[in-house]
């Protein structure tokens, strides 16, 4: 008995050490990035592990706003994220609602048509999608970014799940009172599925904010660039990529901080929806 408790104690110590060092591999780089972003140009090249700036300075952020002109891509990103997320949530909720109705003519076909695209990853159809976007005249517009992924099977099924949890008796009495399909959707189902709406809003927000591939494919002029595109030319090692862009480490790390902040804010305020969404997603797939 004594032996097992000492073993247990030893395990607890080792386990905590492992997990702390793991957490440190996440925390130290982030603190390092934050610290370097607030250094002077010169200090940002110092060969030490910087966890706080020696002489705090905004030189990096100044370069970010003036030389890199980060504000424009930032606002472009806000635009596609906000509009894209809003459209995504409303359209997927509408489709999810249709899928919980009792058998109606054509429902089986609709279910199939909505489910199959889950097996067609965007990456594998970029060539024909590129051709389509060009033919539709959407090339080099922010709308092309909003439209790609404006609905997804995943979100539709997630909304369907939430709607199914709403008691039918509510809508039956509304039907009795002569309410139409749209009234029932907007007045009963949408307000009662707030948790579901919140979950896909947050997922979509993060997803849209971080979008890379559509922007790489469809945006060609500098004033249309979204955040990740500009950030990439900022953060990749310049000696190796051969770009002429010359910025100090502080501005490069400032760019990263700039792109992370909205994500951290969303995550801290809506953590429970994240975990819920991940779990439902895994069960579904």
């Amino acid at each position: 008995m004594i032996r097992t408790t000492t073993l247990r104690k030893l395990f607890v110590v080792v386990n905590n050490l492992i997990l702390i060092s793991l957490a440190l591999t996440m925390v130290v780089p982030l603190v390092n990035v934050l610290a370097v972003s607030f250094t002077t140009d010169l200090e940002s090249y110092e060969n030490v592990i910087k966890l706080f700036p020696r002489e705090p300075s905004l030189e990096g952020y100044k370069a970010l706003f003036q030389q890199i002109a980060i504000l424009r891509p930032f606002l472009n990103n806000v635009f596609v994220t906000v509009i894209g997320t809003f459209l995504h949530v409303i359209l997927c909720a509408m489709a999810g609602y249709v899928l919980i109705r009792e058998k109606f003519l054509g429902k089986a076909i609709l279910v199939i048509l909505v489910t199959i695209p889950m097996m067609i990853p965007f990456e594998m159809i970029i060539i024909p999608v590129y051709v389509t976007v060009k033919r539709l005249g959407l090339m080099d517009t922010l709308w092309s970014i909003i439209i790609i992924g404006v609905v997804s099977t995943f979100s539709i099924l997630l909304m369907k799940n939430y709607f199914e949890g709403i008691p039918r008796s509510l809508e039956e009495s509304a039907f009795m009172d002569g309410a139409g399909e749209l009234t029932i959707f907007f007045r009963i189902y949408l307000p009662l599925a707030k948790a579901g709406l919140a979950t896909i809003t947050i997922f979509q927000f993060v997803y849209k904010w971080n979008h890379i591939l559509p922007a790489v494919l469809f945006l060609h002029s500098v004033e249309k660039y979204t955040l990740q595109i500009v950030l990439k030319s900022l953060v990749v090692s310049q000696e190796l990529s051969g770009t002429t862009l010359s910025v100090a480490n502080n501005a490069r790390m400032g760019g990263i901080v700039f792109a992370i902040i909205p994500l951290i804010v969303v995550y801290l305020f809506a953590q429970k929806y994240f975990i819920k969404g991940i779990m439902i997603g895994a069960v579904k797939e």
Partner: protein
Amino acid sequence: MRTRKNILKQIFKVRLLYLLMLPTLVYFFIFAYFPIFDGFRISFQDFRFVGESRFVGFDNYREAVQTPGFWRAFRNTLILGFGNVMLTAFIPMVLALLLNELRIAAWKRFTQTIIYMPHLFSWVIVGGIWIFMLSPNAGIINVIRNLFGLDSIYFMAKETYAQPIMIGVNLWKQAGFVCILYLATIAGINPELYQAAMIDGAGAFKRVFYITVPELLSTLRVVLLLNIMGALRMFNQIWVMRNEVIAPKVDVLMYYVYERGLVQFKIGYAAAISVLIFVLTFIITAISNRFIKYTA
């Protein structure tokens, strides 16, 4: 006649449902179903945006299998893919088991939150952080090496390190996410199982090994399949972290498609490779599905 009228009547009755579904259907037809067929058609063409595209039979496919670049991308996809699939399935499992042993709830939640964080970041952010951490000047890894009197290594400019770095950074980004999937499964295990085992005199290690781990196998199956799908689609990480020096080791199939199709504008050729990847995905998923079912 009667039945047709009936059908129309039925459709009319649920016309609002169709209306609610319409945007979704239009989107899927234009951006999922049509591109599948269009991509297949383009793969047999010498495609051009202006003027007429000629059909060239299997020329694009023939060119693909005869190009070393394609096979190089193929090999890199398999190597990086295998590393990613395995490491990001099993290491988070160990991580979840360790996290589950933490008795203080707040500390457990805090660690979990921290480990999940990198999954939120885009590949540009994650790639940017690690390119900096691995850089020869001011990069944390080399600063630590210098402390021990070792010379700095220019990690991102060495072919030997390229693949381990890509796999390691991917693990850093995805581990927390996969870990949550396992933790959710562990939380759902019936506590009576543990109590029964305890009464039978099973120690802590035995309880984990004979109860928790077997319960995690179904989740492991899901994770493996998710990872396999993800491995074949790998693009963003490579787009951010590649450079000309390490390109021979890290250029994967999706990057090859992008480069050939949309940088060099060999659209027909790139479409042919996309079709090949699609077929490959289908085969690999089917095989692994059977294999995973068989072993689990």
